[in-house]
């Protein structure tokens, strides 16, 4: 089992002061949110299997917050060589994740959000959007969503 210290070490991140380094990162199969990302269980049939690829040992940079400089990294857990990821950008969706039986994955944030453990299942990872106000000369006309970064 990963602790915050071991999970964050995967992304070479020191444990933030508000987290206890020795606390175990829970491995969950339900929906989870990490700041502006959400891990959403989806049916196995919705994954683009031919495009799924094993996670490299350095992990995958799922999204990088230009504003904050923080990154959400996706890593395979202990003894989890078959965790696979397919980038599939569509709206807020970033991609699909497959965690096989008896394996796990970790979503690690380089900022304050710490780490989330991901149990065997199939998932989509979504980012967050905001109802944006982007129009000039027409006070507060709403036209398009804006993606959020943390």
């Amino acid at each position, binding site marked *: 089992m990963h602790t915050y210290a071991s999970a964050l070490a995967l992304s070479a991140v020191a444990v*933030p*002061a*508000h*987290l206890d380094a020795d606390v175990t990162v*829970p491995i*969950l199969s*339900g*929906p*989870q*949110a*990490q*700041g502006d990302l*959400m891990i*959403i*269980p989806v049916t196995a049939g919705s994954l683009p299997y031919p495009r799924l690829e094993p996670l490299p040992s350095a992990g995958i940079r799922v999204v*990088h*917050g*230009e*504003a*904050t*400089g*923080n*990154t959400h990294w996706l890593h395979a857990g202990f003894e989890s060589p078959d965790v696979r990821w397919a980038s599939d950008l569509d*709206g*807020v*969706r970033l991609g699909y994740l497959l965690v096989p039986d008896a394996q796990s994955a970790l979503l690690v*944030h380089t900022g*304050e*959000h*710490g*780490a*989330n453990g991901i149990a065997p299942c199939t998932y989509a990872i*979504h*980012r*967050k*959007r*905001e*109802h*944006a*106000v*982007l*129009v*000039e*000369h027409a*006070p*507060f*006309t*709403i036209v398009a969503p804006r993606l*959020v970064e943390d």
Partner: protein
Amino acid sequence: MRRTDPARPACEPLSDRRRAALVDELRRAYLAAGLPWPGRVWWVPSPLVGDLGARTAAATVQRSHEMRTASAASRRQRTAAALRRGAGRVLLAGRTVGVTMVVYAVFWAVGATTVAVCVEDAQREGFVIFCTMLGGLLGGASGLSQLGHDRMVRADTVARAAHDRAVAEIDATGRRVRAALLDVGSPRSAAVEDLIGDGLRSMALGTSRTRQRRVDDLVRRMTGVSEPVTVPSTRVTANLTRPRTGDDIWWWAHPEFVIVTEPPAEVHVETTGGGCRPHRPDGPAVRWRDGLRLYFWHGTHVPAGLIEPGWTVEEIHRHHNSEVRRAAIERMGWLTYIERAGLRLIASAPDPGNPPHRLHLYEDPQRRLGRAHVLVMTNGSPADIGHPLLYAETVPGHIDDPVEAAAWQYDCPADVYRALQRRT
């Protein structure tokens, strides 16, 4: 965060050695571009002065060329021209210098801050000043004295044409020299410089009656005429920032002169993952030594008052640009904004996966947010400020349930969001 550059602290005045090196770099770029080195380099205190100075000098050079060409149309004039040719070159140089000196003098007299205030958010207004000066000079008026209406109109027409040609020459020369400079690998690409350049340009794009009045007053003082000469051209403002050599230095290339700015006295940036961008919550993010200031909020160029002292809710709602409005609300803080703007709580609900916190959904009874609602949330991870961090984001106005609103943010079904196991 104050930027520091290991090679040279960005905000220190240039040393003589660095200055000479820059000039040499430009000289080599001219030669590499196949252009003769003009040998005439003017240092100006800020890009605003550089821009107006470059345009004025270029237009004057252009006008002088045209006058000489026209004078060759008749034998008598050709003879006269031949007699004057030698002196003409001297005159040309002197005139160019003179015009630029006038520009500098005006700037030093009124102060770049004053001019910056006048042209902030209104390049067109800044250009009014330039054209008025230029019109006065081209119209044959002595200095910036009184202009009659007819002469003013004529000067306006001449100024438009001469300016367009002159700017084209700056553009063409700039392109060639810049290309050569790229070949020798001198400039570095820098997002901050690009954003500052955008900020300089956007100084000119908006307008307000107050600023228009200030510009009119300034122009009146300078020219003594009641109506300013206006040239509503966007093209002339498109190149306010010229290619630069790095080091936050803007420069303008012309066959007969080069204008180079001094570096800014202050540059404040925030670091982002891929680099950095100008940002300062309590003052100008970029300041030149002549007083020209640019304000940025997380990379968005904003009016000075938004930062110092900060806008009221009424001022926020009055501004036409939504990005600026958003910056102003963020500067104020969404929670403060909700209170001051009188937003109304529609509903609250437990925040799934984030006990014991709740979600709160607000609306603006006055519809100043259009059809948007505002969702107030609590960060899933404690911030290093020692207490839970509340924040707010806008969601579509047709959603009245806080959990549905939060689910909409991630584009997932509300039922899935209600089952959220953990939020960090």
